[in-house]
């Protein structure tokens, strides 16, 4: 039998036909279509499909900003999947801001600190908790042994709250008064209240009920105070027929949403407020019942105003027309429930006491203090019941010594200025001064001069990088902590963050870290910390409200209109303290000001990848920061073109956004970019404006009041 070509062909055709009739073709076609369509070609998805399960919700509180909104964490199969606003919560009732909703990104942030770290050369090595605590307590014990306990300092983000309370207790028992908070709306409200009404008081604005809000640069829609509460108050404004006037050199979202935008020259807010005070006094538009409470020389104040802040002079200083100033002052004074709000941007930026008191004096003049829709002046929130600290001799002598600075900025400057270390050890908690304070080089230099720095942080941020030992903290979804709302709301609310997920890394509650340090010190310090854990401490110091905190997730401390008139001491303003001016140098003709953008943050944490993603390409393009500038300011600059921006602090390459919404002569640069830590989604984008602006400390308060800096810009 000969196998010829034909039979060979038969074999082939037969094979093909056999396969064709068999299910192989059909099945493989189907399978390969599934293969191409489904996730098999994307191996990640086969290993990590988002697993389904029971949907549950847990209520907690967000502590990313002082707003302290209630949050609802949606969990699937016990795995947190999404954070949303909590309906019915007294602060935010349902809404949420983009940062809170990105909260879970912080949990898995690439820059999270996974275990205690110790500085080794330029990098860090992992150490155990026991090791870290014993090294810290060893150093601190030496400082006490030397009889210089005041050389322990602490920087944190707020004064209120039990973790801050523990830090203050540690410093007290140790023997140091060097406790500092970062500039915050909380501190500004208290400083202003202290100056005008007396110590121990604070101010709150009833924005929800006011019919005329006159905001001096307060970014009510930029994240000022409690952002969601502000958004809500603004949303009901139309129905309430309430007006919003915004004083700001730039058309911010708040200015855009306002009934009137008053584009005053940067840094002239105090002048404008005083000019309006002058109009109100001159035209007898003030409330005589209210002015009866003025002490310290109302007549002297009025005379000073007529002399220094006449309409003509104010118009010249601020760049606002006389008629507009007059109209605004009259509108404010004649409104039923007017409120003048201070705290530029988010309320935590550079401000002077002069500006804040000048604005608040408007409130005092029109008699809206402690009235619905006005301004509440009341005692500071007190809900923690810590027992008195027992101090030994060393502690007593140390505590008796004065703080080395009135503010954190002044303290750092003192450190820089002295040859010998005035601070031997620094504990930084929930703060990033190496990023958020003006002239970051100066801050880093001061911190590097402090021989021993401990950081209690969740992220390896700019300041943690400078630390000798890092004790990693939980994020707000991992730990228990009381969070008071400190953002100028009339409702005083304390919330409780709850652990909604088991800690992802080997971290601890900052409160527990502080307890561990305290207990490792000698008995005279350790004896003040009788609790076995932070949780036990929290329950005992919040005993009065613990039931409602643990059951409802929050406690309302007060929400009614406070009663009683408030004395107003006008002495400080009557002397007309000098207005802070921007740091300048010859040839620098423009003013660079920071822009607070709701989609970014500039505090202790950086913005999340989601938040950075929402940032417009007129703010950040590639890795270049875009500055806003009015086309009238500099001829020859092109929109989207490259430019060099120079201030007395340094020069940077920027892109230009020609924008009609900014005052000519002013350059606006966003705050919150230019981070340098290890998170590629967030860091190394743009520049940190604090590298370009230096602090200008107000005399008498030590507050950094640098609203901006003189600058020049040229085509690159």
């Amino acid at each position, binding site marked *: 039998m000969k196998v010829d070509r034909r039979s060979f062909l038969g074999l082939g055709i037969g094979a093909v036909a056999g396969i064709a009739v068999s299910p192989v073709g059909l099945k493989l076609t189907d399978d390969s279509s599934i293969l191409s*369509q*489904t*996730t098999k*070609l*994307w191996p*990640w*998805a086969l290993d*990590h*499909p*988002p697993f389904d*399960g029971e*949907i549950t919700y847990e209520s907690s509180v967000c502590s990313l900003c002082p707003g302290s909104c209630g949050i609802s964490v949606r969990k699937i199969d016990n*795995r*947190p999947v999404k954070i*949303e*606003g909590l309906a019915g919560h007294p602060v935010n009732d349902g*809404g*949420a*801001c*983009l940062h809170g*909703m*990105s909260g*879970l*990104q912080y*949990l*898995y942030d690439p820059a999270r600190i996974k275990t205690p770290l110790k500085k080794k050369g330029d990098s860090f090595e992992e150490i155990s908790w026991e090791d870290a605590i014993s090294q810290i307590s060893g150093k601190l014990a030496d400082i006490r042994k030397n009889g210089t306990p005041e050389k322990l300092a602490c920087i944190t983000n707020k004064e209120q709250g039990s973790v801050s309370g523990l830090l203050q207790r540690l410093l007290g028992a140790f023997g140091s008064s060097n406790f500092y908070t970062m500039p915050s709306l909380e501190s500004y409200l208290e400083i202003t209240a202290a100056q005008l009404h007396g110590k121990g008081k604070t101010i709150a604005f009833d924005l929800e009920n006011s019919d005329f809000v006159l905001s001096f640069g307060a970014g009510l*829609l930029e994240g000022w105070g409690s*952002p*969601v509460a502000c*958004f*809500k108050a*603004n*949303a009901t404004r*139309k129905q309430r027929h309430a007006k919003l006037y915004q004083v700001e050199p730039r*058309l911010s*979202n708040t200015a*855009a*949403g306002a009934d009137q*935008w008053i*584009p005053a020259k940067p840094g002239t807010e105090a002048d404008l407020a005083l000019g309006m005070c002058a109009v109100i006094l001159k035209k007898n538009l003030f409330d005589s019942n209210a002015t009866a409470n003025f002490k310290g020389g109302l007549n002297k104040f009025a005379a000073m105003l007529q002399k220094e802040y006449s309409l003509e002079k104010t118009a010249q200083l601020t760049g606002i027309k006389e008629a507009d100033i007059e109209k605004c002052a009259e509108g404010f004074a004649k409104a039923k429930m007017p409120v003048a709000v201070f705290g530029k941007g988010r309320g935590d930026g550079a401000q002077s006491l002069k500006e804040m008191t000048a604005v608040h004096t408007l409130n005092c003049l029109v008699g809206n203090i402690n009235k619905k829709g006005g301004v509440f002046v009341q005692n500071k929130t007190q809900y923690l019941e810590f027992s008195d600290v027992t101090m030994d001799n060393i502690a007593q002598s140390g505590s008796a010594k004065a703080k080395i600075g009135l503010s954190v900025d002044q303290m750092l400057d003192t450190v820089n200025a002295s040859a010998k270390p005035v601070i031997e050890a620094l504990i930084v908690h929930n703060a990033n001064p190496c990023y958020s304070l003006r002239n970051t080089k100066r801050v880093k230099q001061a911190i590097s001069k402090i021989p021993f720095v401990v950081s209690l942080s969740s992220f390896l941020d700019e300041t943690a990088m400078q630390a000798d030992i890092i004790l990693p903290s939980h994020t707000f979804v991992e730990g228990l902590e009381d969070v008071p709302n400190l953002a100028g709301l009339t409702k005083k609310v304390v919330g409780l963050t709850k652990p909604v997920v088991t800690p*992802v890394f080997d971290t601890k509650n900052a409160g527990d870290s502080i307890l561990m340090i305290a207990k490792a010190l000698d008995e005279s310090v350790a004896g003040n910390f009788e609790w076995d854990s932070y949780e036990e401490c929290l329950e005992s110091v919040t005993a009065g409200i613990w039931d409602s905190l643990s059951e409802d997730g929050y406690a309302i401390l007060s929400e009614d209109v406070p009663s009683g008139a408030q004395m107003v001491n006008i002495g400080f303003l009557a002397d007309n303290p000098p207005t802070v001016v921007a740091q300048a140098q010859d040839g620098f003709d423009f003013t660079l000001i920071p822009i607070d953008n*709701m*989609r970014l943050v500039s505090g202790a944490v950086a913005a999340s990848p*989601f*938040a*950075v*993603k*929402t*940032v*417009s*390409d007129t703010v*950040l393009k*590639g890795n270049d920061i875009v500055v806003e500038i*009015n086309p*009238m300011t500099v001829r020859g600059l092109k929109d989207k073109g490259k430019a060099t921006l120079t201030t007395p602090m340094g020069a940077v390459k920027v892109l230009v956004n020609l924008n*009609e*919404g*900014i005052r000519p002569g002013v350059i606006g640069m966003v705050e919150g970019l230019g981070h340098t830590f290890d998170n*590629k*989604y967030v860091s190394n984008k743009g520049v940190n404006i604090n590298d370009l602006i230096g602090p200008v400390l107000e005399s008498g308060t030590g507050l950094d009041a640098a609203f901006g800096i003189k600058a020049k810009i040229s085509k690159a």
Partner: protein
Amino acid sequence: MKQEDKKAHKFGMVVDLDKCTGCGSCMVSCMAENNVPFKEDETDKKKSITWMRVYKLTNGKSFPETEIIYMPRPCQHCGGKGDHGHSPCVSVCPATATDYGHDTGIVSQIYTRCFGCRYCMGACPYHARYFNWWDPEWPEGMENYLSPNVSPRMRGVVEKCSFCYHRYQLAREKAYVEERDDIEENEYQTACTTACPAGAIVFGDLNNPEHEVTQIVKPDPHPDPRNHDVVGKSRNPKVFRLLERLGTNTKVYYLSEKEWVRKAGDNYRDGEWDKIKNHHGTTESTHG
């Protein structure tokens, strides 16, 4: 059962642009809800996937008369000419990977079925569709927050806003076990709507006169006598749709007191706006 099925929904929303503050909550809520990824550089907005995107509009006047307003733009869920379901994107899809749900009015899609020709992106007048140029990636551990209710998309497919359809599905499941025939207005709300701190977004069934969205929009069920392709025009003179005259019959309406904002909703030739602005949003039939 057949009886109720005939009662089709027409889900839509109205955004109060005077309330919108441009805060970006809706964008993040959407991304977190729908497993939208992020990458190192998101500043090339053509390649940045944002189902919900907030645009900034300006009146173009110079300082200090400048005004700005923010406009959130989800998928507009076009009903197409005459509102028959021929959405611009659905009509051009060669893979039948996207189609129009006549029972909901929602333009739906099967990501895995898409083969990435991007015709739909070209057809969409609103730039609401996005192409995945890369497989999404999450930093280690972060995939733990992904939701099983929306499947992650791979490289090579187009995606867009779904009006959070999975929330509709979940609401319906709940109604089924409770043996209810239909869902309540508050049971199905999109993630952007619930997140908005200003309450600027109102979402609901445009076919249900009880729903707030219908009461604000007051959609005209009859075709516009001047342009029969247009159906569902708002009878509220402050409400407009984007590029309404194209007859795309979008289900996302916008509300503003400001005339320049309403004018910005379409490209008008010189003098054209002045002719129609006074009866904008109304039809001759309603004038009687």
